[in-house]
């Protein structure tokens, strides 16, 4: 999965944020639409789409979508 595809996947969870505001460099937790329930939805989505388990710290310790992508890819390799 490319980072662009990953970014699109994360974007699918947002309902009102315009698509041009969500790029790999986006600090997604600074978006108006961000809340802790979106973190749960990201955990579920990454599990269902990529079969990767994220934990609470994985979400807490990253800022941008690219950071999250790198965490996911690292876990994917570590399997």
């Amino acid at each position, binding site marked *: 999965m490319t980072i662009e595809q990953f970014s699109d996947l994360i974007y699918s969870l947002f309902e009102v944020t315009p698509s041009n505001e969500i790029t790999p460099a986006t600090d997604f937790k600074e978006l108006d639409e961000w809340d802790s*329930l979106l*973190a*749960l939805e990201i*955990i579920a989505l990454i599990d*269902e789409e990529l079969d990767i388990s994220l934990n609470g710290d994985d979400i807490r310790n990253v800022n941008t979508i690219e950071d999250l992508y790198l965490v996911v890819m690292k876990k994917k390799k570590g399997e």
Partner: protein
Amino acid sequence: MALLKYQNAGITGITAAVPANLIDNLSYTDHFENNVVKKIVEKIGIYKRRFVKDGTCSSDLCYAAAEALFQEMDLDRSKVDMVLFVSQTPDYRMPATSILLQHRLGLSRDVIAFDINLGCSAFVFALQTSFSYLQNTGINKVLILNGETRSKVYSPKDRKTAFIFGDAGAAILVEKDEKFGNSFFSLNSDGSKSSFIKMDGGGYRNPSTIEGLREKVVDEYGNIRNDEQGYMDGESVFSFFVNEIPIDIKRILKFSSMDIRSIDYFVFHQASKIVNDYLIRKLKLNSNKVPKSYPDYGNTSSVSVPLTMVTGLKDKLAKKKILLLSAFGVGFSWASAIIQTQDCFIGTVTEI
């Protein structure tokens, strides 16, 4: 490995009781902005809850449910051999609430009575305890009294928990009978995750203090609570759930040698829409087989499993049915069970 198999024990009747005081989640509090509340409520799918009035305890809900059970099943209460009170909101630190209920319900002094102190997972542990006791001669009827008043536990100013929990009680009769066949339990515990859901103050580790009861801002979101109100790290809880619960359900299916398609109903802990919808998708379940009570009652902690049976399976358990139960929560503690029901009486939801 706590994988257990029993024969000839099963649930023969259930009733529930809830507070008459109805909470409309959208207008529950004006502490948060309306659009924030609307978004939370729609995502968690919890629109209504019931909150007890001051002075009403979990045991009062259980008492009302038990009286209804005795009456509706025309049950001779002197025949009850054991009473388990299942809750983390007891009347007192001592004595055990089960013993107070023995007296209040007019049960025999011969009765075995003790409390089970677990959270959302507790009903499955209590059911296993009852099945285990029923293997003994001399124990034929166990009364499980499962009640929670979580409205008293969480801060209305902490958005991580303010909109989720509700109050309810249930009375469950478990009996010995050959018609029930085999039942299976998987019980699990992991104390390394104790900080996921916790109330820090008010116990003997951190006794009550004036300072501990003072409200404070606890995080960067401006959430407010005191040390004697519970908190929940939702991301960690959800992540644990995603990693462990589908595995535990598959484990109990394998242990029972049953195919998931042979399960008639799946009764899950009613954590929230996010949690329950995930499980339905992950296990590829037909949602008609997964009753839910969270939209109308919220997450009633351990009562959610029996309450969902009462509200969602009325008139559906007359013939022989196979149920898969799964619940998880504070501890961390999680459990799954496959049980059989036949002629299971599903009574009313009493309002008090």
